[in-house]
């Protein structure tokens, strides 16, 4: 009998394997596609932020930063002596219209309670800090400028976590698990992302296709933060000498990962040009689409022990936040499995029982 089997070797599976191995558990990770072609993490924008509505998400965001900054020491191995995730700590800027202002002020209370260090600014003063932004229709905005948010290379981060987990004794094998009953282990962790339903059919998590466009602009602002315009749902950040921009339009039940190209001219470009005048001149140079592991109940994570099983734990439903929450979730699951309760960040609000009883607890700030 195995000690721990983790089903799914994506970012959540790798992070969980790392933390469990560090605690001396013998972990076997089973992944059906080790090139991770349709996994969520490699197709994400790689962002890590603490600007959320709910305290748990804020705290997980804070831990992500701490962890990412410590990658060189934490994830060092003989094979990977200089681990990195190519971090760019440009910060985040989220902008809200009058319709979201009230909610945003309540979110700010949570930021304060969690000592998140975010800054709040009135829409009318936005151009004092970000002179390239058109503040029309912006009531309030939050941002960080102390290198506490930004983005990383998801694939490098995953590779470093995986290498370190292996170094600590974990085993990653290629294989497909069709049913939990195939596994004979003391503890089973389902980290199956978008495909959680294939193992646990009562979990309302489904793949949600999102498109990211790559654009070239004659003017470059390398210090631009990852910027989300909540009045349109469009978000963007610099990438090399170009920019990446995410579309707010998503699709369930998509047949393939072909980007929704037509959304660029119809929706994303007008939204970009309205907010940043240099974006009036853009050339579309590429794009891709990826899946969010969308929790259809409330866009929030589902983490914990599954009440219908003796030994099954799960983590899924991150709805686009899996990469940044992976360190916190890996640590939390490890605490739960090894001690029976959460020791650092209490994420019991994400418990599986919540989705089984349909107690929605929505996180509004999905980008």
């Amino acid at each position: 009998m195995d000690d721990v089997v983790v089903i799914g070797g994506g970012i959540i599976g790798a992070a969980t394997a790392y933390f469990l191995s560090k605690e001396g558990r013998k972990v076997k990770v089973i992944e059906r596609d080790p090139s991770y072609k349709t996994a969520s993490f490699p197709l994400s924008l790689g962002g890590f932020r603490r600007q959320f509505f709910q305290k748990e998400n804020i705290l997980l965001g804070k831990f992500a930063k701490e962890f990412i900054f410590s990658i060189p020491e934490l994830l060092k191995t003989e094979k990977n002596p200089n681990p990195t995730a190519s971090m760019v700590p440009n910060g985040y800027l989220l902008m809200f219209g009058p319709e979201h202002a009230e909610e945003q002020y309540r979110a700010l209370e949570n930021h304060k309670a969690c000592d998140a260090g975010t800054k709040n600014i009135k829409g009318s003063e936005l151009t004092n800090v970000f002179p390239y932004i058109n503040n029309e229709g912006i009531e309030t905005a939050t941002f960080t400028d102390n290198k506490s948010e930004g983005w990383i290379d998801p694939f490098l981060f995953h590779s470093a976590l995986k290498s370190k987990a292996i170094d600590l004794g974990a085993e990653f094998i290629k294989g497909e698990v069709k049913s939990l009953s195939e596994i004979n282990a003391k503890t089973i962790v389902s980290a199956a992302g978008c495909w959680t339903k294939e193992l646990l059919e009562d979990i309302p998590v489904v793949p949600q296709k999102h498109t990211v466009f790559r654009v070239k602009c004659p003017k470059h602002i390398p210090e631009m933060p990852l910027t989300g315009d909540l009045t349109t749902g469009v978000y963007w950040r610099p990438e090399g000498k170009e920019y990446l921009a995410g579309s707010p339009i998503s699709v369930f039940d998509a047949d393939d990962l072909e980007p929704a190209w037509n959304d660029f001219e119809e929706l994303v470009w007008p939204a970009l040009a309205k907010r940043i005048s240099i974006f009036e001149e853009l050339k579309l140079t590429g794009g891709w689409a990826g899946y969010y592991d969308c929790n259809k109940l409330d866009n929030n994570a589902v983490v914990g022990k599954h009440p219908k099983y003796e030994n099954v734990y799960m983590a899924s439903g991150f709805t686009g936040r899996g990469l940044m929450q992976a360190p916190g979730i890996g640590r939390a699951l490890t605490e739960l499995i090894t001690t029976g309760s959460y020791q650092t960040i209490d994420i019991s609000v994400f418990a599986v029982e919540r989705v089984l009883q349909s107690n929605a607890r929505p996180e509004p700030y999905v980008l």
Partner: protein
Amino acid sequence: MKILVAVKRVIDYNVQIRVKEDGSGVVTDNVKMSTNPPDDNAVEEAVKIKEAGKATEIVAITVGEEKAQETIRKALAVGADRGIHVKVDGIIEPLAVSKILQKVVEKEKPDLVFMGKQAIDDDCNQTGQMLAALLNWPQATFASKIEVKEKSLEVTREVDEGLETIEVNVPAIVTCDLRLNEPRYASLPNIMKAKKKPIEQINASDLGVDTNPRIEQIKVEEPPKRKAGIKVANVEELVQKLKNEAKVI
């Protein structure tokens, strides 16, 4: 000098091409369409020549279905003065396109006709040369540099051996390579303005050109799938395989 620039609407080069299951062609429904990339270079070059004071008018022309007008609007957004849309539905071969262009050239009397060297959909690489033949004009194909002289053009051409320079008398046809220039960015406000500009529309049938295809497309299929790869034991074996099996070195 007056320049006519021919542009074609094609599936955007970013889009993953999918073949229809019945083998009748590729999927175009709900697929992003754009101007054929080297046609953008043709428009850019015309605009640059006009900006240099060596041309007075740029007319963009496209041949195709109703929506082909989008490509004219893109040309108008970056500096073309007016547009002509020759409307025709269904597959239209380069020979028929060049006959249509010939009719328009006879009416518009441009001094130069520019277009991309090849369309990225049918990959024919024919229209410019055919138009030159029908008009009995000189042709400068695959241009990567154009110098406008008094009554001629000096054109540097991208050829397999390197670069070739020829001089062609005006009127002439030039087909443009991607290396010719860096097309400017169309700005969103200019695209919006171009959407309101009128475009002259002509029905291909009114030009007296037979547009029926001469080539039957029997079937379209996916290219053969890549064979599963192998691991080689050492560098010697790798070089052997590359030389004798893959024949790439």
